[in-house]
């Protein structure tokens, strides 16, 4: 294909972002724009929850049990103060979703970040150093692949419960969760980064850096890392969606965040108790919110993968 006249410009920097093919492909797909908007809206709402949410569901003093189990505002008995109704404790569903998203997103983002840092580091080292180090890291990765994230997370949770004093567990549950989800996701990053590193390290620009005399750490940081970010970005996006689902699932199974600071998964689990009793809004709205958020992130990730893969264009 040396002859194709359309020599495609390799990836561009943010400075030229708006001129790039990625931006072009982005503004051409309304669904992706929508999913980006939805995702950003969720992130913004979560970030600015205290200003966005009509109530603060974590402020126990502001909750009145007598407001509990009110239906959404458009139904009979709906209360205009509570747009999507209230849950069994009298918390505003809309606000709990927003605050729940805050927790879900915090846990997932932190877990993704943790996975990413760990995975990239191990992947870079594995790919660049090679030899026995590589073999050991990759064998560990193989072993870990046998255990899906959810299982690892549960094991870790179980271990922490066994090791730590009980009272502490509630306080650190979120960090345990982040660690558990994070530690279970590094393999993807490590494998991808290792693969890219193996390719990049044999590229001549890396050899040129070595000829200059630059050491491996700086080479990895300055030369290899920026060149492996594309696939990492894609994995991170999709991993974020998975992390959100994992968090929700763990909370649903009762090994996630404590119900006093409910995440979206906890909300669904709590609401599930009311599915048959007709108070469907307690579980359905958080369920929809979760599905929409994950769907939006997945759509975005899907598009990003295609857009960053030059072969697909």
């Amino acid at each position: 294909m040396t002859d194709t006249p359309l020599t495609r410009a390799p990836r561009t920097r943010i400075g030229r972002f708006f001129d790039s093919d990625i931006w072009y492909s982005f503004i051409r797909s309304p669904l992706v724009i929508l999913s980006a908007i939805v995702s950003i809206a969720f992130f913004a709402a979560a970030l600015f929850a205290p200003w966005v949410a009509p109530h603060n569901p974590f402020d126990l003093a502001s909750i009145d049990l007598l407001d509990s189990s009110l239906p959404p505002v458009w139904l009979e008995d709906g209360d205009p103060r509570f747009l999507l109704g209230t849950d069994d404790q009298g918390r505003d569903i809309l606000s709990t979703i927003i605050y729940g998203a805050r927790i879900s997103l915090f846990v997932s983002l932190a877990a993704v970040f943790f996975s990413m840092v760990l995975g990239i580091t191990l992947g870079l080292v594995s790919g660049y150093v090679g030899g026995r180090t590589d073999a050991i890291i990759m064998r560990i990765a193989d072993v870990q692949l046998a255990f899906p994230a959810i299982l690892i997370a549960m094991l870790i949770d179980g271990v922490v419960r066994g090791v730590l004093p009980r009272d502490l567990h509630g306080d650190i549950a979120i960090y345990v969760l982040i660690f558990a989800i994070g530690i279970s996701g590094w393999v993807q990053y490590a494998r991808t980064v290792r693969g890219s590193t193996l390719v990049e390290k044999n590229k001549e620009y890396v050899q040129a850096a070595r000829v200059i005399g630059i050491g491996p750490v700086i080479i990895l940081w300055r030369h290899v890392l920026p060149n492996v970010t594309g696939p990492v970005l894609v994995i991170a996006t999709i991993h974020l969606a998975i992390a959100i689902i994992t968090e929700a699932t763990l909370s649903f199974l009762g090994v996630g965040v404590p119900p006093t600071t409910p995440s979206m998964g906890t909300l669904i689990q709590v609401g599930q108790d009311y599915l048959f009793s007709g108070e469907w809004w307690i579980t359905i709205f958080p369920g929809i919110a979760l599905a929409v958020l994950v769907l939006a992130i997945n759509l975005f990730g899907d598009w990003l993968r295609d857009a960053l893969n030059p072969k697909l264009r």
Partner: protein
Amino acid sequence: MTLLTIKGMRVEFPSRRGHVTAVQDLTLDVAPGEILGVVGESGAGKSTIGNAIIGLLEPPGEMTAGEITLQGDRIDTLDEVKMRAVRGARIGMIFQDPLTSLDPLQTVETQLIDTIRENLGVSEREGSERAVALLDAVGIPDPAIRIKQYPHQFSGGMRQRVVIALALCGEPELIIADEPTTALDVSVQAQILDLMKGLCRDRNVGMILITHDMGVIAETADRVAVMYRGRVVETGTTEQIINHPTHEYTQSLISAVPPPGRRLARFPLVTYIEDAQERPEGLNLATHWLGQSRDYGAASDTLLEIEKLHMRFVTRGSIFPSKRLFLDAVKDVSLSIKSGEVFGLVGESGSGKSTIARMITGIYKPTSGSIRFAGQEITGLSRKDAAPLRRQMQMIFQDPFSSLNSRMRVKDIIAEPIHFHGLASSNAEAQKIVNDLLDVVGLGAQAAVKFPHEFSGGQRQRISIARALATRPRFLVCDEPTSALDVSIQAQVLNLLKDLQSELDLTMMFISHDLPVIRQMCDRVGVMRHGQLLEVSETESLFTNPQHEYTRHLLDLMPKFSGFGAQAAE
């Protein structure tokens, strides 16, 4: 009588930045048994022609004008089903890379027989017989046995023979060969070209041979079409084109091909080519930053001395030592390079020449042996201790696309060694040096803020050179610096290297598989094969009086094409 006629073909690739016209106003014809060479440099649109004829243009490309007729039948308007009957049965195609052209999971036999039966509708048995016969015809020994094997069990050259056999399965009237020998070694290349020539003659099959290599054209084609920027600029017999080109582009193209028979002081400046660059007049390197404070120790007579250098790679690791497999890439090589000399290393792929370069520059650690640079042993040095020496030797790589970090701006790429070795006291000074270097290599300071992808291959190679010069080295290793470049660009880069070498009094190790290029560049040459250094001699005496049998063999295979005035072989 013509076999294939193309009239006024135009191929366009719609894109968001407007339509790109890959081929326009193309008119060609091929007669049965004739080999038509289509030659041109990257981006000339030559591969597009082949794909357009066979109806397999990469989407979104489409043929927007013109017509293609095969033996009087219009084929460009056929629907997919009818076109499929043309492919294979009437037009065969050979691609560039034999390693990826074959299905790795099926035996050669299955691929051959299925193709034969699909195209000719013969019985299983007849298909099988034909398959063996075809393999025999393309020169595969023991065809009845080898047919049972999988593609990975064949060598590159053998695979290309299988590809040719597959292209012949449907007994086509025309074969389109798209760079069929580019991925092969010189010695194999010659055999494949011979084979194709013979087959065309014997079977009276017409062929369109698409290539960038004037040498291949000269050896093989009956007639030549020269393409430039999607148009045919000149058509004629091979003899005419090579010896009496009329179009300015053809002339410059041919003048840029390094002549194997003699050494030029400089290549003629090719003005026709648009990104031709020479550095500004009046740049005096002696007063320039590059020329100043070349504060190295006294230049001894011998700058680099290699003794019994050995490199062994493990190709299969195992806990049992007996199960391990090794490759001895470099076997006990000893050589020395004098100050100010250009030392050439020549050999086919896998001969170990690049490995030597990488051991000298510290990318690989030799298994045994010694390398002395300016009298100092460098093999055992730590990275820190080696740093002052690293500054004195730099390297230029083969692939202009991968040798620059695409995420960095040109100024950062060139400034990196300056900062690393502490050669500038401030950012501003470093910037100044970068700008000077860009001037020296003929790109100009405005290139500094751009990213590598904004440059062509030749320009990128200039950036590589600027980076290599940034440490003010006295020894430069050039590893196939031009083999990925078009000939016209190659000529300029070689000119630049020559100029720099003489003006800065650089010592150079110049590695290439291309003997004519070696002849243009080097003072002394070493010939390598299978990791061994077979012979070292002065360049002129090597070409006129080769000592080693292998050297003679290489010289025999060297394309006889020699530019203006030389006789086209055979």
